[in-house]
């Protein structure tokens, strides 16, 4: 059985075999445990920094803590429109994310905003447009100007869009 699970995880099991194995996993808690342990092993091998153990159990626990909303069904139609709008927005932002990811031109670790924990005080504020003059005056004498030429001036004319300040980490206060 264990070997079959491992084969399944490698994606080398035929469809019908996989289906019956999934069935088995669903029914037997022992097999289910094996399934989880194998994934944990895989996770540890791939990225030893962040391990999630018993994630599904924790999610289930939190779900049970969530209040049950008892709402009348009168606004169902409105709800549907809103759901559609939301899903449209979600797919738009997904397009945005894909576009942004395709612009990730660096092999370096892209800014993992959500993950990083900085020991120093996190900077949560964007430099305001009113401060651009300081940036310009600074740029004039900075060595980066010798190297990048005008390109380094792009910093000084970058515009702040009207949006919430980008935060370095979600749990900062």
């Amino acid at each position: 059985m264990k070997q079959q699970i491992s084969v399944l995880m490698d994606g080398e099991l035929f469809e019908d075999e996989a289906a019956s194995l999934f069935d088995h996993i669903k029914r037997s808690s022992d097999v289910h445990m094996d399934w989880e342990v194998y994934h944990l092993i895989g996770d540890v091998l791939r990225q030893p920094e962040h391990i999630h153990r018993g994630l599904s159990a924790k999610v289930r626990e939190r779900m049970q803590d969530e209040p049950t909303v008892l709402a009348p069904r009168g606004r169902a139609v409105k709800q549907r429109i809103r759901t559609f709008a939301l899903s449209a927005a979600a797919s738009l932002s997904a397009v945005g994310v894909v576009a942004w990811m395709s612009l990730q031109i660096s092999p370096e670790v892209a800014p993992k905003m959500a993950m990083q924990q900085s020991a120093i005080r996190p900077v949560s504020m964007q430099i305001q447009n009113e401060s651009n003059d300081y940036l310009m005056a600074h740029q004039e004498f900075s060595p980066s100007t010798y190297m990048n030429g005008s390109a380094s001036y792009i910093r000084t004319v970058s515009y702040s869009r009207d949006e919430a300040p980008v935060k370095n980490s979600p749990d900062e206060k």
Partner: protein
Amino acid sequence: MKLFVVFCGLLLAVVANVYAEETPVSLDWLETVVFAGHQTDYSGVFVYQYDNRVETSNIIHVTEANGEYEKLESLDGPKREIIQHDGHVWNYINHKMVLVDSQQGHSGFPFLLPEQLSALSANYQAKLLGVERVAGYNAQVILFQPKDNLRYTHKIWVHTDSGLLLKAVVLGDKNQVAEQYAFTQLQIGGKIDRSWVREFNSVGLPGKSLPKPPEAAKDITPINSGWVADTLPSGFKKTMEVKRPMHGKHAPVTQIVFSDGLSAISIFIEPNDEDEDDVDGLSSRGAVNLYHKVVDKNLITVVGEVPPHTVMQVLDSVRYNGK
């Protein structure tokens, strides 16, 4: 046996020598970058990624009989255009060319000063990392690793033939990208659009005022203000101390600049206007951090391509040491 020991010593000396030579090689590259950036005609599109935003810009650099012309134009967001010529920087704001900057000290041929190079090698460890492809060109990758955590790591990609800088990345804490520039398309030499140079030089064009340096730009005067910063990171040397007019300020502002060869820290000191009460605080844009604070009725602003804790450390040590 003795001979063997001598031989081994000799071998060690040779090996040590080979390793010692790694750094000077990279610094030569840096001079090549500076030289190539000014002597080469090129046009291309580059992206600037900072925080979690990306901006695309067009850049054209040509050399004419009366000097270099460089135009930078943003391709997304509101139209912003910067033209640089003869050490002056013009900004295209609201359909008007406005002179925003004039590089007093180095309006001639820009070059890296020997002091700058020695400061650089004292504060950073330079490493050649091999050749990679950027915008279709082969580029030598060079890493500048700081010797302390008070500055950022810099990584540059230099075109192996022309010496042009094709990509530059600033890496912060834990090697995450603080900001990066990279060409996505680049034409080196050949037929490059110069029509805008004529347009820029012609007088009385509709919507554009005469691009002449106004009087204000000449008012940058060297001074000895008496302001000092006690805890600058090691290797930062004062390169400039001036009194200058600044856009939107009634009184001239004192600016003191320190550099470690690769990045700079500017300290601005000005009388605190009554209406700017809650200006204290830290903000950032890409690799640049800015920290404001009021000290003795003066508004102090520290700006630099250094980590946030460095600008804060510097500002907290600023004091008046004059008469």
